[in-house]
Structure formats: C-alpha cells, structure tokens
C-alpha cells in the first residue's frame, strides 16, 4: 500500500513544484478514499479488530467508531521524500492506533487486504492503484497548469 515515484525532470522550475504536487496528490487520494469508502462494510470488521491477537490493546475497547478509525487512517497518509529524488505516498508507520501499541498502518493493511479469516475491502489499495497508474498524466497536467503552459480548459475535457 504505497506509491513510489520519481520525477525525472531536470528543469529547475518543474523541480520546485514537486513538493506541492505531492501534497496535491495526497489530498486527492485522501478525499478519494473518503468518498469511496463503504462504512457499512468496514463496520463488519469491528469485532475482529477488538478480538484480534495481533492488536495489543492497552485496555480492550467495547466498541470502535469505524468512521473515526477511517479518518485516522486517511489522516496518516503522507508523502515522504526518499533518497535520489524519489517520493513515497504511504500510510505512516509511526502513527499508533489510539489505546493500543499497534501501528495504524497494520490496521489499515488488515482492513484493506484481509487475512486468513477475513476478506479484504481494498478501500485503500484500490485508490492507490488508480493513482499509481495515472501518475504521469497527473504530473503532466499539474506542471502545465502551475507553470501556465496550458489553460484549464485544455486539461479538463467535459464529455
């Protein structure tokens, strides 16, 4: 559940907007996940989270607000600058699930991929995959718009 990409452009003007592009991408991914998430489906996992052996709870909760949990997962999606000009969009591994010692990334992976008892919902990886496949187009459009190479009407086509 991560997107790793590298901007190969040598143009200084283009390189100066890479961080803005990452932020734009992260906020788009976040809103896309929140718009497409099926809270009812996720609520079926509530019991399994409470009873799971791999979440170390400080005090076992009676109930989990899945909407808050999804918001927490989505808020934990970050873009990290890696070495050699690479960037990575992923769920932050250092964020801990409240009232536990387990990282939120692990919970996100469970809800997304499932395990040997529960089916995955793919609510994050589906969106990540979509953005990963189109990242070149997004970058081209973003550069063109930010650096005023083309106008909005040329980027957006209404069918």
């Amino acid at each position, binding site marked *: 559940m991560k997107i790793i990409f590298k901007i190969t452009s040598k143009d200084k003007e283009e390189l100066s907007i890479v961080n803005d592009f990452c932020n734009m991408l992260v906020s788009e991914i976040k809103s896309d996940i929140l718009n497409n998430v099926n809270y009812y489906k996720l609520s079926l996992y509530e019991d399994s989270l409470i009873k799971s*052996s*791999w979440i170390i709870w400080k005090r076992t909760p009676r109930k989990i607000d899945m909407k808050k949990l999804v918001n927490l997962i989505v808020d934990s999606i970050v873009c990290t600058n890696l070495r050699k000009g690479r960037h990575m969009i992923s769920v932050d591994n250092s964020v801990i699930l409240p009232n536990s010692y387990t990282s939120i990334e692990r919970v996100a992976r469970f809800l997304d991929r*499932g395990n*040997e008892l529960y089916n995955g919902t793919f609510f994050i990886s589906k969106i990540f*995959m979509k953005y990963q*496949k189109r990242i070149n187009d997004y970058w081209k459009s973003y550069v063109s718009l930010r650096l005023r190479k083309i106008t909005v009407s040329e980027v957006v086509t209404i069918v």
Partner: protein
Amino acid sequence: MSVYKYDEAIVRDLRHILQDNRIHIVPPENVFRLLARIDKDTIELPAVSISRRGWSLSGSRPHTMKFDGTLLVHVKDDDTNTDKYVNLQAIPMSIMYQMDVWTKTREENDNIMRELIFYYSTHPTLNVEIPYGSKDNVPYHHKFNIFFMEDIEDNSDIVNHMNRGEYFRQTISFYTDDAYLWKSTSRGPTVIDVDVLVKGEPRDENN
C-alpha cells in the same frame, strides 16, 4: 465470455508453471478452508491464492468493436444449406487481482515470490479462449498481458492464527488492462428480396 474467462486463464497458467492443481481463484479468508477440503483436512503449504479485486470498464478508451463488432467467421452448414456469420463485439476493460503466497518459512516465501515475479516479468502474455458457438467449436484466442504493481507487502503480521503455528504471507497486486468483455452474435446472410416488374407485363396477382 465474461471476466471469469480471464480468471480461468490465469489459474491455468499458474497451474502449468507451478505444476500444482490446488490453485484457485479464492479470497484469502477461504484459502485454508479450501485447502483442507481438497487435501482431506491436511493443509499443505506452500500455497498461492488469487482473488479478483474488481474490474472496470476503460471508458476513456473507445473501441471500434463496441457496437457492430467485427466479422469473426462465416460458417456454412452443408446439411441444411444455410450460412451463418458470427460477429464478435468487445468492450475494453481492466481487471485487478491480488496474489497471496502462503508458506511455512520466510525463505521459501521470498523464493516463490521471486520466481513468480521473474516469470511474469519476462512472460507477461497469457492466452484466453473465447468460445463463440461455432459448429466445430474452435474458440477464438485472445492474448492479454498482466502487470505486477511495484509494492510487495509482507502481511505475515496480521494473521489470526499466529499462536497456533507460524506461517508467512506476502501479497502482490497485479492487473491486466488489455482485457475485453466479449459478446458474440450470429446472423444469416443479408438477403434482398427483389421484385422485378417488367414494363408492359401485368403484375402477378399472387405476389
């Protein structure tokens, strides 16, 4: 001639390269249940499971075969002295899959994953058979490619049976974006009913 044909093609290919008949399109939560059913309650690892994560129509990619389709074959039945033209229509789509490798040791898991990645990186083309109901029933063959995503996840840490015996699980996603939703239609030859009226002759009242 729907999406399941692509599932079958992938399963067939995996069974061929791994020489194992236990490969099925099955979500992760049913892997052990299915393995136990096949092997009389003994679960033998390693195992590979594939689940289809969904499919989407490639709406931005119009295709000429969407409406009328293309003429696939002309079948002539000598017994009834009839002709039949089979047209094949297609709508482009992409299908997403998730592949899980389950093993008892991490080393074995890494090795199987490596082999699969190398194999499909160098042989990404698979063959799907599209039956279209011709007389001799020779299916139409369509080639499609599968592409692995770059991210391989180690999901060994979210298993529920952790304390009852360890096993390891790695997950990789792959997709095909040159798949098609197929439909075949057959029709007889186009016939024009011609009524010739010769000038000066009276019209035949029976017609």
